[in-house]
């Protein structure tokens, strides 16, 4: 049918905008980098960006159901501490260790989901509480920074693929293909979008609300654990750092917003959030390239974020009934 592409464009507008924003920023960055864009520069930039991108994907899954997950950063820290203890030894032991880390991530997400669904508590307070619990578990595992990780695995994930492509981008692509796309295309993912867009309409349409929420939270935990594993591979150690956890939680929300995912739920995609995360990281790198003092970085990041939120709020100007502004 003719005109299909215009509907496609409309549906993916926010994701495309996020991609365009990232592409512009990254081109400026690459063009002005003193050493030019070589494989090593790209790999370092990619590793930092991918870590946040994975956490942002985790956040997206929950935000789509119009929830919010303030424990993603802490699940990542917990996975980091766990991985630095069990992802070592023989290849078999390493593989089992990876599996264990991912399972713990799923468990954390599932606990969040169950409390939100059956306890009927707001996601924001639930995940503040569980986040603190997960951080406590991380501290119990690793009182002082340390530990180790299988170096073959670490090098494989943080190095370069043949041709100089950063391996972390491969990891990100794999996550999109294995976790995100099946979710997006499945009936359960559709249900998650429906809940975020209008929970009442979803209920009236006979959508499995509880199952969809549960899957969204559990997958969010899984992705956060992947991020923790990847962090371990970058640092070769585990650290129960509260600062790290909180920073990543907040940055993941920023990335989600920059990526065009609506905090009210129901619209946007994890791919948008990935570009949002990469964009957020590039802002910092840009300042470095232009020799701006690092102290200015938070201020500048804040301004960019503010501008993005204002764009997103433009729809409020169209509201004709003022009561709807306070709904």
């Amino acid at each position, binding site marked *: *049918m003719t005109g299909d592409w215009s509907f*496609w464009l409309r549906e993916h507008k926010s994701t495309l905008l996020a991609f365009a924003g990232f592409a512009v920023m990254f081109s400026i960055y690459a063009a002005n980098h003193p050493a030019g864009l070589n494989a090593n520069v790209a790999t370092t930039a990619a590793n930092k960006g991918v870590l946040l991108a994975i956490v942002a994907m985790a956040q997206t899954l929950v935000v789509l159901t119009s929830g919010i997950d303030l424990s993603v950063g802490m699940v990542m820290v917990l996975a980091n501490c766990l991985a630095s203890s069990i992802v070592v030894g023989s290849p078999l032991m390493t593989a089992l260790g990876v599996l264990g880390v991912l399972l713990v991530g799923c468990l954390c997400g599932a606990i969040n989901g169950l409390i939100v669904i059956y306890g009927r508590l707001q996601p924001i307070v639930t995940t503040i509480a569980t986040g603190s619990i997960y951080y406590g578990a991380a501290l119990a595992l690793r009182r002082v920074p340390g530990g180790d990780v299988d170096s073959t695995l670490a090098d494989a994930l943080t190095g370069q693929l043949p041709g100089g492509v950063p391996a972390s981008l491969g990891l990100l692509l794999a996550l999109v293909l294995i976790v995100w796309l099946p979710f997006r295309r*499945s*009936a359960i993912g559709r249900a998650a979008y429906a809940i975020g867009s209008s929970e*009442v309409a*979803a209920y*009236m349409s006979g959508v499995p609300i509880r199952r969809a929420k549960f899957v969204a939270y559990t997958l969010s935990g899984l992705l956060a654990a992947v991020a923790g594993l990847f962090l371990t591979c970058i640092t070769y150690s585990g650290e129960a750092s509260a600062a790290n956890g909180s920073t990543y939680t907040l940055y993941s929300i920023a990335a989600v917003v920059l990526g065009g995912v609506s905090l009210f739920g129901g619209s946007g995609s994890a791919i948008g959030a990935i570009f949002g995360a990469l964009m957020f990281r590039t802002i910092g790198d840009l300042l470095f390239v232009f020799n701006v003092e690092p102290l200015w970085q938070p201020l500048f990041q804040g301004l960019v974020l503010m501008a993005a939120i204002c764009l997103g709020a433009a729809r409020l100007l169209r509201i*004709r*009934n003022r*009561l709807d502004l306070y709904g």
Partner: protein
Amino acid sequence: MSLFVMRGVSKRYGGVRALQDAELVIEAGRIHAVLGENGAGKSTLIKIMAGVVTPDEGSMLLEGRPVSFASPAAAHASGIACIFQELSLIPDLSVADNIAISNPPCRFGLIDRRAQRRMAEDALTRAGAEDIHPSALVKDLSLSRRQMVEIAKALARKPRILILDEATSALTAADVTKIYAVLKRLRAEGLALVYISHRMHEIVELADDCTVFCNGRSVATFAAGTRTDNEVVELMIGREYNAVFPPRTAHVASDSPLLLEVQGLCWTDKLSDICLQLKAGEVIGLGGLDGQGQRELLLALFGVLRGATGEVRIDGRAVAITGPHAAKRGDIGMALIPEDRKTEGLMLPMSVRDNLSFAALGNLSRWGVVNAAAERAAVERIVRLLAVRTDGTDLAAGSLSGGNQQKLVIGKWLLMAPRILLLNDPTRGIDVGTKQEIYQLLRQLAVAGAAILFYSTDYDELVGCCDRVLVMYDGAIKRELVGAQITEHALISNALNIGAQDENAATQRAT
């Protein structure tokens, strides 16, 4: 054997009886119209059939077998699809996604987009809306088109019983014609259709059988065309209780000053060319079926609606009311008692005193500091005046009964001594005793020189309380009833826009 039978179905909400001993028999291949005034129990009936609400008593038989539905999904599974008044579409998803939402076609666990697309195109064609693109987002469609998608969505489930609750109220004339053809074809295909509409001419055009509801009971079932419009209206009235209303003031003096004058007020497609005049000492009612723009009219006067056009004059002086804060200013002195006291009227967890003094805090404070003594005195005066039954003013407003909560909502505006009082269905869901106190109060305020504009879904109230009633239909004032003209019969027939006069019939055909 009948396709679907409901016997002795009852449902209560708290102390309110929404449905009592209701009977309904639905046959395949026929269109069954359900009639009744506001709050007669039609919505509850449908919600029970659609699995949204479970009945307290009674039984339902589908093809002779007893059934009960725990959720909308269970009703879908039995072949009952419902098109609700409030849309059940998901705004951020595409038309095809919405049509397939209950049961998307899957392959290897993933949604098969091509099959879904075919399914959507099929359903849209069956609904007579093949011009809607399946990939369009629902939020980009007009209300009428959305309603067509809603119908397509219901048809995609291949239902045996299709319930349409005011399904045509949002449709444009072109879409209505298509829907008529679609409904007649579905009937020929052997579907059972339950059709709820307030538009009598639609019922004449479509229905085979009719059931009239009144006060939660099914009072009569008859074949379409065997009763006149007038007889149907009589069936819909049948009241059980008669509240006692305060006597009207002899007559509002014709030289009594004009407080509020509205000329040509319009807002989006919800309000068109509203003109009204409100004199000091008058109680004016807004009548008509629920959702014909009465709520919007009150909100527009109170300055809540952005982009409302037209002229509003207070004391003969044109004013621009930009919001509640401006509306309550001394020279305007307007107050709105909102419809939903729990969200728009009260802060439930806060104390009775805080709730009462909120709107008037400006008058009770100096240099921004609240004068506690003045506040307490004012609050106690109102509590006494309205006879609010509460153990002191420190109690949370939420702990009071519904009727006393409503007194608080009214009382907080009385502290402002408003000259113009707008009320949006102030007696909904409160007990008869409190209702009567509210009627008395309204009359006292009017006698003291206030002008009152009063929307009610209860026709009895309009008859008992008002000096004049403006009947609204489709966002416009269609009829003004004065004094002895205000009868329940006149209110209902005008609300349905089937007034005896030929001029009304003519306007109806024109719209």
